[in-house]
């Protein structure tokens, strides 16, 4: 009678229930603290090394991937910065006007060169859109002709593109002034013509025009195309092609000034029609790094997420299996006096210990792989601060998430389960 009344009324039942078990009995047991449970979990996990290893495998792989990807993206960022081509980042090119109405002139280049931040600037363009000319070493003998393209370059442009000669010398601004009929040969062009040295001032002939070769260009950092071409001063170019080609002004700036010169350059080059002149400015190093970093890390974060999902699933799956195998053991613990909470805690902590193990293993393996990978890319391995702490914590978190459902399953096992095995 009394019993049924107590069971139906929820509020009264709570009040009565607390009073039902004498306090002395209540406090006699159930003193299994979280530390003691963790200790039990540690023992349980360490005595089942086979199962533990398989269980931790997924997390190990996930954390390994986490460490490798984070390490690599940090190192990649770093190497983008350090191997960033300093020359490229300081080169600005200007174009504008039409072939009949050129806007880019020597006078404009002279004004541009005076801008603060400009190291050097010059006019440079290809003749006839790189259409090759017949070039010969004898005036009326086409037996050892070569087909070569021509590049027109002012003396300052040669400096700007970083050209150097292996034989002879460059022409200077006097060449244009005094209408000197001279030419430089890129070393490939020189080979094609069979010229190895400018000693004796060899001559070349093009469309009946005689040019004296005064130097052979063996390198040009900013414009490797000229190595295969004949390079002539603007005056010579105008005689050969009529001077109707689209011109380019190339300028080298101080580090960090490229953007500024890109904005100011058109006003210096042609104060009357600055908007008709377009500047090509290289992307700044920070922009470039950000681009590389985002494209890399988007992919990597996706991989990391997938890895962690695999880690969670592998712990969860194997723990669920092991709960079924351990029904009798868990029932026994219940019979001995483990409350449902104690069981849930035990299983959760076991999963977390396994996760931690996977985290530690993954961090170690990840570090090794990452250093090897960075080395093969010739990057300096950069380890993001905190990753050594974050990675194992990630393992524990994986275990904690993976352990929830198994803990819930284990909690529902009754003491009677111990007796049915």
């Amino acid at each position, binding site marked *: 009678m009394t*019993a049924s009344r107590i069971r139906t009324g929820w509020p009264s039942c709570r009040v009565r229930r607390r*009073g039902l078990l004498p306090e002395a*009995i209540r406090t*006699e047991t159930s*003193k299994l603290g979280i530390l003691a449970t963790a200790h*039990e979990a540690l023992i349980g996990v360490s005595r089942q090394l086979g199962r533990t290893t398989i269980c931790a495998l997924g997390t190990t792989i996930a954390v390994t991937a986490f460490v490798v990807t984070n390490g690599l993206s940090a190192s990649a960022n770093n190497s983008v910065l350090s191997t960033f081509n300093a020359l490229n980042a300081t080169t600005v090119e200007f174009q504008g006007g039409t072939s009949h109405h050129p806007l880019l002139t020597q006078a404009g280049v002279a004004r541009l060169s005076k801008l603060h931040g400009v190291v050097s600037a010059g006019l440079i363009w290809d003749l006839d859109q790189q259409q090759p000319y017949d070039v010969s070493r004898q005036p009326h003998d086409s037996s050892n002709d070569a087909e070569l393209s021509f590049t027109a370059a002012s003396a300052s442009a040669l400096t700007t593109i970083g050209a150097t000669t292996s034989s002879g010398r460059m022409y200077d601004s006097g060449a244009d002034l005094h209408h000197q009929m001279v030419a430089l040969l890129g070393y490939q062009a020189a080979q094609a013509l069979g010229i190895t040295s400018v000693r004796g001032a060899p001559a070349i002939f093009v469309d009946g025009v005689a040019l004296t070769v005064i130097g052979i260009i063996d390198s040009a950092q900013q414009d490797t195309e000229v190595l295969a071409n004949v390079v002539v001063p603007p005056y010579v170019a105008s005689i050969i092609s009529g001077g109707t080609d689209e011109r380019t002004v190339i300028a080298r700036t101080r580090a960090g000034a490229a953007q500024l010169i890109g904005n100011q350059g058109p006003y210096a080059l042609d104060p009357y029609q600055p908007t008709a002149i377009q500047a090509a400015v290289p992307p700044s190093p920070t922009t470039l790094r950000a681009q590389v970093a985002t494209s890399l890390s988007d992919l990597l974060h996706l991989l990391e997420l997938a890895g962690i999902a695999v880690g969670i699933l592998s712990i969860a799956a194997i723990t669920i299996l092991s709960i079924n195998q351990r029904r009798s053991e868990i029932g026994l613990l219940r*019979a001995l006096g483990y409350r449902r909470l104690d069981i849930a805690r035990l299983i959760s902590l076991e999963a977390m210990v396994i996760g931690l193990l996977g985290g530690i293993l993954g961090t170690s393996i990840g570090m090794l792989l990452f250093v090897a990978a960075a080395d093969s890319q010739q990057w300096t391995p950069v380890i993001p601060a905190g990753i050594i702490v974050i990675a194992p914590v990630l393992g524990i978190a994986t275990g904690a998430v993976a352990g929830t459902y198994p803990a819930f399953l284990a909690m529902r096992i009754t003491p009677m389960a*111990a007796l049915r095995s």
Partner: protein
Amino acid sequence: MSALAGPETKRSLLSLDRIGRTYGGQPAVRALSTASFTVDAAEALAIIGRSGSGKSTLLNVLGLLDTATEGEYRVAGVQVADLPDHDRTLLRAAFFGFVFQQSFLVASRTARENVEMPLRLRGMQRREREQRATEALVSVGLEGRAGFLPRAMSGGECQRVAIARAIAHRPRVLLCDEPTGNLDEHTARDVLRLLFRANKQGMTLIMVTHDLAIARAFPRTMSVRDGRVSEGADSFLAAESLVTDLAGSLAAASTR
């Protein structure tokens, strides 16, 4: 509290009033019905009955491993049916120690760790826990096996470890379900001696058996037959004599 514990039940440690247990299923099995009796502190009680009669069912209800579906069961005056699972677990851990036919040791734990389990639940400090565990292992003569895993011990040794575990925390009641069922006669006698010694020290001993010889060693016996519990071994003997008659007639038939 005092209102719930009647004047009569207050004296007894365990008191059953028309306890029944029906296992749900197709068909439902009424394994225990209208069991009414009391057990006092420090008593020694044998429960005897044939296989399938409901002995284990009764013992599991007594030990709070299982819940009765009918009637009222009080432990030290506490009405068990009203307790939430949490409190029932506390009560079980405080009052009962179990020894089953199989030893049910945790396979991954050594003998000592198995014995320490109920002690840990009491929040006992390491030194006291180890001392108690050693004491219990010494009392079953297994101090030399403390560091052994169950798989490295014989069945009899495992059973003695299970007894050490059941008595280490000094429960009020020791519940045994055919503890000697898997043991040879000699080992069985050792185990029984241990259990009686625990009883002498003040632990209530309740043992399920289907062996009349063992039951006779107890001052009090109860029989279970088809889920009905009665005082004394008479009902069991009546059933047993039928079996003997049957065996006799079979033997007679085969010799003829």
